[in-house]
């Protein structure tokens, strides 16, 4: 089995090229100039993080319902991706914030809740690591995968609920998007590019996870030594040789 497949990476590569071209062809911002082009990586990163946590939620619910291992693999692989993209959004946001706001970090609810979301899913991964039994691991992380998802709407709504420095929703909001149309097109293209990259990585990760599970399963069904087989009878004679 090829972990990456063939068609999907090709499509993703194509979309990526188009998106890059679009990002450079789109007009520069009136105030921020070329700096604003960071949007084409920052925003998709954040959205793909949402997407992956949503997939974790879906995988978790499906696992609890159907108890099929592949749903657990979906939840886990996608959470890993989500942590990566959340980290990326944080880093790119900081890089963007330094010239625009003058600081790397500030006490903005959007920023803090994003960081908190990062920690929540780190906790999710820590919980998986700490649980050895496959069934218990799947069960516990499925429950936590559902609980953790409350963070996503909180992050999204944080700019609305708390007065804030960060950009309020410009695209994903009721009514007309408040953004120039060429910019919007470039943004949507880069979102598509990030999403297809994520899809490639997710599929690869899930296939690897499936292979890992298969190896584990084969090791199980193979004549593995039983836990009790390694225990010998004590050498009682050895202890009292000269009695």
């Amino acid at each position, binding site marked *: 089995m090829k972990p990456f497949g063939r068609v999907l990476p090709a499509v993703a590569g194509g979309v990526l090229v188009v998106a890059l071209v679009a990002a450079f062809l789109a007009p520069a911002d009136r105030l921020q100039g070329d700096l604003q082009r960071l949007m084409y990586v920052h925003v998709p990163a954040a959205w793909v993080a949402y997407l992956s946590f949503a997939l974790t939620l879906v995988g978790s619910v499906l696992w609890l319902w159907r108890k099929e291992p592949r749903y657990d693999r979906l939840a886990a692989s996608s959470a890993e991706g989500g942590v990566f993209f959340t980290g990326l959004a944080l880093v790119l946001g900081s890089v963007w914030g330094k010239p625009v706001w003058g600081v790397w970090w500030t006490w903005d609810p959007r920023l803090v809740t994003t960081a*908190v979301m990062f920690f929540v899913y780190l906790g999710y991964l820590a919980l998986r690591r700490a649980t050895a039994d496959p069934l218990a691991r799947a*069960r*516990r992380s*499925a429950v936590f995968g*559902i609980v953790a998802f*409350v963070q996503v709407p909180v992050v999204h709504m944080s700019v609305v609920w708390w007065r804030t420095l960060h950009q309020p929703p410009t695209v994903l909001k009721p009514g007309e998007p408040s953004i120039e149309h060429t910019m919007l097109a470039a943004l949507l293209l880069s979102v598509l590019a990030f999403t297809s990259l994520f899809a490639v990585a997710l599929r690869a990760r899930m296939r690897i996870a499936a292979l890992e599970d298969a190896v584990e399963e084969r090791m199980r069904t193979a004549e593995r030594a039983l836990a009790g087989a390694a225990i010998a009878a004590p050498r009682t004679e050895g202890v009292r040789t000269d009695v």
Partner: protein
Amino acid sequence: MKPNAVRQCAELALKDLRLELRAREVGLVIAPFGAVALLLIPMAVDASTALLRQLGPGMYWVVVLLFGVLVAVRDTAVEAPEQHAVLRLLGVEPAVLQMGRALANFVLVLLFELLLLPVSIALYDPDLTGWPWLLLALPLTAGGLALLGTIANSLARGLTGRSTIGPLMVVPIAVPLLLAAVQSTRAAGLGRAPWPWLLLIAVVDVAALLLLVLTAHHQEETA
């Protein structure tokens, strides 16, 4: 012959509270620790009285959150594997088991909040306008922390490092609770009715409650 769910829930909570009464973790230890934390912050940041008055409510809620979580995941709240096996064999509904634990947690977190309240008033001398809203904000927040703590406790059951992996999972998720509680106090202080914030807390509570009840079955199976 079998007692109803409410009665069972009360019995379970009573057991937890009795254990807590014997160990006195919350009253004797966590609450003073929280009070010390409140005391240390002004010392460390060397703030003026005016600044302190402004920081007061926020600090109170941060300490409530961080240490309230410790209350919910305290040692006596956790069953040994043998005790857990007995509870599972009793035939009590998993949701009832979880609700019993959550109820005891709620009482203790609320107690903790009430113990810290006079301390923070004495130390920070905050503006007390709109304090009656606290009568709603305190139990709502305690409920949320208690419910989330109960979930964390059963997810971390039997893991090494349980006493710390539990809090790690709850604290971030409880952040909306913290923010809403702070904002509600602030709004009340400005003479406005903090309904939206209280609503947000209530929504978190209800969501946590639903999750607790719906996943109770799965949580009890994780042995």
